[in-house]
């Protein structure tokens, strides 16, 4: 099976520049940081996928809190307090639709999502896993937030093979990356300390 991995670090700091995908998401200026970061990655190229697993280890905590801090007045903020909405906006930016499953499990969110991603590759044609991490957060006037969005897309069933495509993460190439089928007898999966530490 071939797994394409794409990753993008994105700084969300209003006022925002109009993105290239604004025709697909006319209300792009209403997106929260996580949705914006994911849409930036998804809009980069056309992909086929029939299942999108969405994993957000911090859920939508920051947007929940921002909604409260703003006096619970802004509907556009409240909408993004549902972590599945970011997947929807990313799919919209990519002009695609498919089954989407938003999975949560605290610090184990990555592991469980990755497991479902590989598991679903047995019966879905093209499963994908999207993950968004908040790397930096500045409460100051700038409201600067740095996100890392990652997308894994699986295709071509058969032996396991990882292929790296677009990435802007500087540490991506320096880490050891390997994979074995996590459903084989000796299950090991490790993709470098920058991404997932351990999945067994």
């Amino acid at each position, binding site marked *: 099976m071939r797994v394409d991995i794409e990753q993008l670090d994105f700084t969300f700091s209003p006022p925002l520049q109009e993105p290239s995908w604004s025709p697909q998401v006319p209300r792009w200026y209403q997106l929260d940081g996580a949705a914006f970061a994911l849409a930036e990655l998804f809009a980069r190229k056309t992909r086929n996928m029939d299942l999108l697993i969405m994993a957000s280890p911090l859920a939508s905590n920051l947007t929940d809190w921002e909604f409260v801090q703003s006096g619970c007045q802004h509907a556009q903020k*409240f909408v993004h307090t549902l972590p599945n909405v970011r997947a929807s906006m990313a799919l919209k930016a990519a002009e695609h639709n498919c089954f989407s499953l938003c999975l949560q499990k605290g610090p184990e969110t990555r592991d469980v999502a990755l497991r479902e991603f590989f598991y679903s590759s047995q019966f879905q044609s093209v499963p994908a896993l999207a993950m968004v991490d908040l790397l930096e957060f500045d409460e100051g006037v700038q409201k600067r937030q740095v996100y890392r969005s990652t997308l894994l897309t699986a295709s071509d069933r058969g032996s396991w093979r990882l292929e790296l495509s677009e990435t802007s993460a500087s540490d991506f190439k320096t880490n050891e990356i390997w994979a074995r089928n996590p459903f084989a007898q000796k299950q090991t999966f490790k993709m470098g300390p920058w991404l997932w530490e351990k999945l067994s």
Partner: protein
Amino acid sequence: MSYLNFISCATCHGDDQQSLFQGLLQDRPGKLSHALGDSPYFSISGDFSGLSYFQRFQTLISQQLDRIDWNSFEKQKKWGLVLASTKGITEDTVWNSSFSTVDPYFELLNWIESFAPVDFSNSVVVSNACSSSHGAIELAKIWLDHQQYDHVLVVAADLIGPFTLKGFQSLRALSPTHKVQPFDNNRDGLLLGDGIATAILGRTAQNKNEIKVESVHSLCEGSSATRPDTSGQNLARCFTQSQNDIDLIMSHGTATYYNDLTEANAMELAFKNKPMPKVTASKWSVGHTLGASGMVDLAIAEQIFKTQTVPGVPTLKNCQLSIAEQILRASEKHEIRNIMISSLGFGGMCSAMTLSCEAPGES
């Protein structure tokens, strides 16, 4: 194969689906609470004073889990656990002065895992907005159909708190008249409701009258964050993937203008060349229980199969939608073998769950 080995739910009508079903058959809305201000919501009864929201979830979920006759299940089999929820669990942390770095669902999932008297090989939370129940059952069905697990415990839980209520106020989605009138010309919005439901799905039926979960089909249409594609084409795609002849659609029926229009259009598209099923709805009586709503409707479906009686939508007076003739206004006896439960959720979620029962009417 996936069968519904057990289901139970607590709503504003009481702590089981029988009390809920009686309320529906008697055209009776549940108890409205004004505890959170001007906007009432359908609340589960109980003395929750002094309890955190986490403790309320614990209390209500434990009551539902205690209803399960665990001895009728082989505990040494392989079990999975899925929790379906949206925002209720965030109420304890979201009002803090800084944002929480802890996933609010995680602690509740861990607690359920420790409370239930079986060992779970895997557990996860599905948070697919108001279609979370459908997503959870779809995931459970995938696990069971591919023989990854023998049983899956699905818990769907959402309680209404100030955060959720203020959020829906900001959206102007709540009914100002406090009347939930799905599909009515004068529908003016929804009311929220507490809902806790538990189900055990298994690879085999334990009784011949058990419900078979035939299919769950979902789609994230990437339309708008809050508003579904009102043409109904994407929800219709979920409807038409079912291979069964449907006798009844339990609609999402929130009583918001766009939801009901979308569902009506989807039904018209999906059943263009075959008999249109009867249609009913439950949110006029229990409110919108958000992530739990699909499981609450599943509990109602269980009662419909058992009694072969379909509750109506008594708040419906005038309807100009294309499906008007199919919507039941009052309870009626019907032969029901196949039910479809429809769902729409924020983030463009469309979903349809199809159920069948080989021996309906037998208990």
